[in-house]
Each structure stands twice: as structure tokens, then as C-alpha cells.
């Protein structure tokens, strides 16, 4: 939009309107991030002897980070998280694209019903979805062969967790892509149709490249979400021994801080994860932008 249209005003309105958001952002986003970084550089020091002990907070340098990085448990929790992501993200992106193209295809029927059906899981919180799927997986109650297939096995557990996550996000991503498809100019598709292109050719050669930016956006969002995996494994944990209390990094942050009462170690893990997520987002965002540019040029 033309910046020239935005005039400078002596009114205090814009400042007053931005102030609450900025204040809350400072208090509840930036301050906690900074505080976590501060805590990650500290440790508790027990002092005193005969006359009773007292604990105080002393500077620890990078020792909490050294502990985090040298802990094989940290790396294996990262590995498990990535494994779920590697299974879940391609499936989510593929199915969302497939369903969106099908919804948009000529001659598709039951589109309203199936769009509503696909969207339903979005209204189900991740924890509730995990409990729901937990009963579907649990041998005693399973209607999907939980007695025969071990859904909580050492390998299957990754698919089990990924499935719950995919189920929760697929409809929303489908609707995002479908809306992008509906916004495309119809002329090209019609021209291709007149030229005798099949429905499949139109979908793959014409529609798909045009919604590539939206696809890369949902891929990036899925990746960011995957790095924050917590709800699904936490809610499935009471049902199985296959999920430990440090199964994924965020569960480790929680158990460090609240179960082991090591807030300094927890802060170091949390801050590490924060930096990694920001790095992935920035790198992913740059890649998506480059892809979009290549598409449009």
C-alpha cells in the first residue's frame, strides 16, 4: 500500500494503540526469553555448614550448556523429535495438497461435507486428540487392531505419535491450500481444458506450481510446530512405557524444571531449543522466499 497515503499526525492515537501490545510483548515474550538466558548462565550454590545451609544463585558460565550438549539423552530426544517430524511433515503436506486439489477439482462431489469433516480435528485440542487416539490404539479398547498391532512398539511409536499430530493439523492446512486454489485466476485452467488437458494435468502442471508459495508456507509452519512437539507424547505417556519423561526436548525442559527442580538446566535446554527454532524459521523462511521468487520470475 502506498506509504505516501499514511500521513503523519500529531494525534496520540497510534502510540496509545500500539502501547498495550508492546508492553505485553516486552513482559511476556522478551522478558521470559531474556530471563531464561540469564538463568541458563546460573547455578545454585549451597553454602554454609554447621549453622545450616543456604542456597544462592551464582554465575555458572556455560556449564549448563555444556551439560546439555554432553548429555546423550538430549541428543536422543532431539533425534526422536526429528523422526516424528520426518514422518509427519511430508504426510501432512502431501495429504493437505491432495485433498485441496481434490476439493478444487471439476466433478468432485460431497465437497462441503468432506471439507467440514476434514476441518473437524482442528477444533479438538492436541491433548484430547491424543487421549482419543490413545483409546483407539490401546489393545483393550482398540477398534483398529490394537490387539494384533503393537502401536506402542519401539518403532511404531513414532508413527503413532506422528499420526495423532497429522490428524490434528491436516484439515486446517487443507483449507489454507484450498483457499489459495480458489483465489487463482480461472482463465488459465479453462484455457488448458479447452486445449484438452486432463484434470490431473491441470492439477499438477497448472494449479500446483501456482500454490507453491502456500505449500512452502504450510511446510514451514509444520516444521516449526514439530520442533515444539509436546502435547501428543505427554498425553500418550500414561498409556505406554515407550514414551519416557524426556522423550522430546520440550518434555525434557519440563522435567528438568519441575520434576528434577533444576531450573538452570531447564532454562539452558529451553534457550537452546529457542535458538534452534529461530534458526530453522529464519533459514526456512529464506528458502521459502527464494522459492517464491523463482516461481514468480
Amino acid at each position, binding site marked *: 500500500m502506498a506509504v505516501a497515503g*499514511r500521513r503523519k499526525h500529531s494525534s496520540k492515537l497510534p502510540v496509545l494503540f500500539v502501547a498495550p501490545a508492546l508492553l*505485553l510483548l516486552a513482559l511476556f515474550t522478551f522478558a521470559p526469553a531474556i530471563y531464561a538466558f540469564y538463568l541458563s548462565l546460573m547455578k545454585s550454590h549451597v553454602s554454609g555448614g554447621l549453622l545450616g545451609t543456604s542456597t544462592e544463585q551464582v554465575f555458572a558460565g556455560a556449564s549448563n550448556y555444556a551439560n546439555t550438549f554432553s548429555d546423550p539423552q538430549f541428543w536422543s530426544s532431539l533425534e526422536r523429535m526429528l523422526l516424528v517430524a520426518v514422518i509427519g511433515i511430508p504426510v501432512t503436506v502431501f495429504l493437505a495438497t*491432495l485433498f485441496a486439489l*481434490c*476439493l478444487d477439482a471439476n466433478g468432485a462431489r460431497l465437497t462441503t461435507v*468432506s471439507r467440514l469433516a476434514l476441518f473437524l480435528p482442528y477444533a479438538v485440542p492436541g491433548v*484430547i486428540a491424543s487421549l482419543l487416539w490413545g483409546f483407539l490404539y490401546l489393545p483393550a479398547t482398540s477398534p483398529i487392531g490394537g490387539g494384533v498391532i503393537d502401536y506402542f512398539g519401539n518403532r511404531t511409536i513414532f508413527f503413532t505419535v506422528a499420526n495423532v499430530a497429522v490428524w490434528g493439523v491436516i484439515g486446517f492446512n487443507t483449507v489454507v491450500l484450498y483457499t489459495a486454489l480458489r*483465489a487463482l485466476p480461472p482463465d488459465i485452467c479453462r484455457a488448458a481444458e479447452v486445449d484438452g488437458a486432463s484434470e490431473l494435468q491441470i492439477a499438477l502442471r497448472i494449479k500446483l506450481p501456482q500454490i507453491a508459495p502456500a505449500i512452502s508456507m504450510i511446510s514451514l509452519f509444520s516444521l516449526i510446530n514439530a520442533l515444539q512437539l509436546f502435547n501428543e507424547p505427554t498425553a500418550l505417556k500414561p498409556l505406554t512405557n515407550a514414551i519416557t519423561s524426556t522423550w522430546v526436548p*520440550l518434555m525434557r525442559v519440563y522435567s528438568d*524444571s519441575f520434576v528434577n527442580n533444576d531450573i538452570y538446566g531447564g532454562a539452558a535446554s529451553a534457550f537452546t531449543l529457542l535458538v534452534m527454532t529461530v534458526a530453522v524459521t529464519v533459514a526456512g523462511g529464506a528458502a521459502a522466499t527464494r522459492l517464491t521468487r523463482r516461481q514468480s520470475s
Partner: protein
Amino acid sequence: MTSTVVVQGQPTSTRVPPPARAARRPVNWRVTIILIIGGLYCVLPALWILIAATKTNAQLFSTPPYVPSSLKSFGSNMSGIFSWNGHIFFRWWLNSLIYAAGGGILSTIIAGMAGYALGKYEFPGSRVIFRIIVAAVLLPQILLAVPQYLLLAKFGMTNSYESVILPQLVSPFAIYLCKIYAEAGVPDEIMEAVRIDGGSEYRIFWSVGSRLMLPALVTVLLLQFIAIWNNFLLPFVMLNNSSLYPLTLGLYGMIQPTGGQPNEYSLVIAGVFLAIVPLAILFLSLQRFWRIDLLSGGIKS
């Protein structure tokens, strides 16, 4: 429904409205079957929970899983979950609503105001502020839950309604969406016209800005409502008083094995059913008001 959504106008670009699909084409069975399978995948688990809710704890383990048992057991499960632990389930439901509706409405107002100011005015620092907000989008709120707890604990503010609502009041992404929408959706000419008529900047906002931004505000409200309703980690770290729990936390607590007692699975299933149904109905019926194209359009600008 979708045609109305798109025809209402793209905020970020001008596009031709989609063609009226006047001529019904022959059924494309392949895509229709794919859609049916996808729909079933999403709906069947929720339907199964309805079947499971018709079973007593014993029937749950002894009867075939896809055959409903009896209406009587369904009724007793429902009354069981409602009366469980001094009617606390109803309290959880209400708490979820307080968090989601209260936090959702307040955060939408805050995001709408900030987005409007950043989208329609230039003032000292406005560019820097927008950069800060874009940077904040990168910091995932979930990862901040534990640090937020540690910080609030310093001030003795944990274990309260505020401790769950306050950290969720500002959503950088919502501000970003509102800014983009205000820029394109609130024309300068109309604002200028009100100004010439002697209207104050506040009147411009109330009579023009807030109304024209309504579609964006409704979308942001629904997104925020769902995000807070679904949030688990924040209440999980902040609360230890079960009468403050939202539904997610309450039901999670119910599934924890307690001292050798067999889990009351039938009650948890009834609770899961009651947690899903009202919200599913609410959101499926509100779907026409969503402007999800704001999300897919957001990256094009």
C-alpha cells in the same frame, strides 16, 4: 460458502471472482473417493468416541469395539462425568471458556488496535516497532511457557486465572495479520473524508477502521480462541489448583494412574466426548466467517 468468501474481496490483491459453476460436470469418482476417505479418517475417531461413550468400564473391555452398547450406559457415563469429584468437570469446561473467550477477545482487541496503528499511521518508531513484532513471531510461545512460569513465580503470580491469560494476550502473528489487513482494507480516502468532516482520529477508528477490519478481527478472534482452548503446556506449568484447570489439563489428570486404582476409562471417554462435541459444532457452524485466505494471502505481499 467458499465462493462468498472469495468474492467478498481479497484484501491483499485484486483478483477476478471465480466462475459460477453453473454446468454440473459429470462426477469425478476418483477425487470424490479420495475426499470420502480423507473425511472418514478425520471423522471416524470422533464417531468412535461416541460409540465408546455408550459402554460401561466393563463393557469397554468385553464388547466388540465398534458396536454401541446401550443408551443407559451412555446416560450413566454422562451423569458420572458430570458428578465426578464434586461436579468439577463443569468447572473445567467453564474455565476453558473463560481462558479462551476472555483471552481471545482481549488479544483480538489488542492486536486489532496495534495492527491498525501500524498499518495506517506513520509515527516515530513505527517501523522499528513493526520489525520487533515480526521478530517476536519467530519466538514460539510454547517454548516460552517454562520461562514465563519462572518469571511469574518471582512475583507470586502463578496458579491463577491471570497467569494463564496474561501471557496469551499478545500474539505477534495476529498483529501482523491485522496490520496487513488494515493497510489494504481501510482506504485512506475514507479516513480523510471523516477527517475533513471534523472527525477525530478516535472517531475515524470507531466509525471506519474497526468496521472495515471486522472480517480480519473475526478471523483473529477464532484463531486465538482455538489456540488458547488447545493450549496445554501453559496451564500445565502455571496451575496446580485443579479448580482452575481447563478441560485439557483436567482430562489429562484423569488419565494418570492413581495409586494402583484402575483408571476410570469410561469416564475419561465421556469427558473426551463432551470436550469435543460443543466446540466442533460451534466451529463447524462458524466456518463461513473464517477468512483463512488472510493466511494464504499474507505471504504474497
